[in-house]
């Protein structure tokens, strides 16, 4: 039974950590664009090099 003295606070602490994480991410605007965030995760986001910038810039004219 003594194990409860550790396990219950431990479980509650973990839960509270999760809650704190949620509140933190909410405050940081992580839920502002749920749709976009979903796509960003799978988007091809290689850093755009100088050359590609110029070529896309010209390519559209």
């Amino acid at each position, binding site marked *: *039974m003594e194990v*409860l003295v550790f396990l*219950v606070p431990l*479980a*509650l602490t973990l*839960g*509270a950590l*999760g*809650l704190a994480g*949620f*509140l933190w991410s*909410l405050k940081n605007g992580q*839920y*502002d*664009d*749920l*749709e*976009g965030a979903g*796509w*960003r995760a*799978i*988007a*091809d*986001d290689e850093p*755009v090099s100088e050359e590609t*910038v*110029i070529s*896309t*810039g010209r390519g*559209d*004219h």
Partner: protein
Amino acid sequence: MQATRDFSHYVRHLGSGLSHIDLAVEGVNCAGCMSKIERGLSALPDVTLARVNLTDRRVALEWKEGTLDPARFIDRLAELGYKAYPFEPVRAEAVETEQASFLLRCLGVAAFAAMNIMMLSIPVWSGNVSDMIPEQRDFFHWLSALIALPAAAYSGQPFFRSAWGALRARRTNMDVPISIGIVMALGMSVMETIHHAEHAYFDAALMLLAFLLAGRYLDQSMRRKTRAVAGNLAALKAETATKFIGADEISVVPIAAVQTGDIVLLRPGERSAVDGNVIEGQSKIDQSLITGETLPVKAGPGTAVYAGTLNLSGALRVRVSAASEGTLLAEISRLLDNAVQSRSRYVQLADRASRLYAPVVHTAALLTMLGWAAYGATWHDAIVIAISVLIITCPCALGLAIPAVQTVVSGAMFRTGVLLNSGDAIERLADVERVVFDKTGTLTLPELDVTNAVDVPRDVFELAGRLALASHHPVAAAVARASGARTPLTGVEEVAGQGVRGFLRGLEVRLGRPSFCGADQIANEILHRDPEASVVAFRHGETRHVFAVRQRLRPDAASAIATLVKAGIEVEILSGDREPAVRHAAEQLGIHEWRAGVTPADKIARIEELKRRGVKVLMVGDGMNDAPALAAAHVSMSPVSATHLSQATADLVFLGDRLAPVVAAIGFSRKALLLMRQNLWLAVGYNLLAVPLAIAGLATPLVAAAAMSGSSVLVILNALRAHRGARELC
């Protein structure tokens, strides 16, 4: 194609040498657009941030102060194929965003507490049937109370506040039974804990809160999304006026800064943002948005000009009279007020359900208590059973039934290009029996189109288009658009009231009136064949061509109407335009019922007449003259190009050049209504099953909690079906 634009009003200075602007973008639908836009804008020098918000369809931009003109971003986005415009977030929107994040915080806290209390409850439930010692049970119950009470106090705020507000105003709403249920469950649980009882209801109370908050959040996020996009649309209409601040000095000011008696300049190609009277100048004006009349009307000193009219040829000085009574705007808004009042009597499905619900539940709980007491149970036991009735009938399935469907359907509609202004529009749209269309700008495209493009050689057309880019005239704009020209000719000069001219490789090129280009003969031939058209002539050396420009039906108008008719929905045209024009459109579309030359009052009268006959009417219109009819109809829709007033009045707004969204919206709403009804029956069915158990005193907290969450999950799963199979009319 536009006059000089000054967007400095929309730019925020962030300090640290950076400027910030928010742009609303039309047509961003997928991840592809997102990266295309972000890369395209980041490619501009000195841009430090370009981030697309796919939910709101907006782009946030930051750049080094003073290095770029914001108009450059708009042009860049146009090159990439997106229409964009700056906008200022409205205050109401900021409040709603704040509310949404508060609801989400409450939901997080309630879910956290519910899960942890559940973790403590399971040992109690299993311990009750095995070997748990009472001290351990009390310890777990006290721990639960420690978590539940502050968590409920925090996350219950949205309900408690609303219930308190209603009670203070001596009214009652859905939140009153919710609050009573939660407070009683918590209070009773504390009492039970103090008396070392076997059961406590902390878990049920918190779970109830979590589910209800989820429903609230879904409901709110649907409206917020629509509001955000509606804000984007309003940005498109951000109107300015050119006001005289001295005898000859002018300044471009936001429309809010214009007052009655001011004198404004209305240049050719500009749409008036005010009502007023012409005091100087001669021109032709296009009143199609106001009256539905397609042909331009002559305007000179004394002519009344209304907001929304387009000045075609000459510059006009207009004395503003918008604020005075008797203007068209005042007349229309009076009609509008009456019409809006008459519609507010409609009661939403959710309201009707909850109005029945609260008294039934309270009576059931009260009768249960009295019944058990009469039967011989102690008051304590009778109250405990009554509370378990209150808990098990918790309206969470009911609270989720409608918002869950609304959210899913509004998302699905959004993807087909329809925005919802109000949740109950779905219910009203579902039982439409007749669709009344306005013609100009609704069945036809809002912008003019060149009809004889095939008769003109491609290279000539393109050259004319490049020349047309130099003019503000709407007919020239149609030529520029149709030719696909992108690079304006340099060194072009404008001849007032005549057209534009320039030089290309030593030869003079002209675009404008037929007489200006010496092409009267060809123009007359074209006008003889098609009296509805407007003409613009082009001359390059000795080559002469005349373009016929007119309104064109939306590309899928015929098929959309055919689909409606096939589904048994009647279709009618109600237009302010002249008879031949309306007859022509009606014949092309196979619509037998049409009326031409109707005034705003006639329109509203026709809608009222249909209403009296018990016909549920969907009105689709875009002009100011349609606004009262839109408000009077059972449900209404506007294209995105509509005047601000119409858009604000309409229940739904559709995007794009096609009419298909109108048909799709009806299909979606029918499916949605079906699902909403199913959900309500699911919630009722669950109660019919669970309540007798609770009344009989057989519902343990485990059964109550499982049944309650089970019913909520079922309702949500059912709502998700709205995604599929709603594209065709049922």
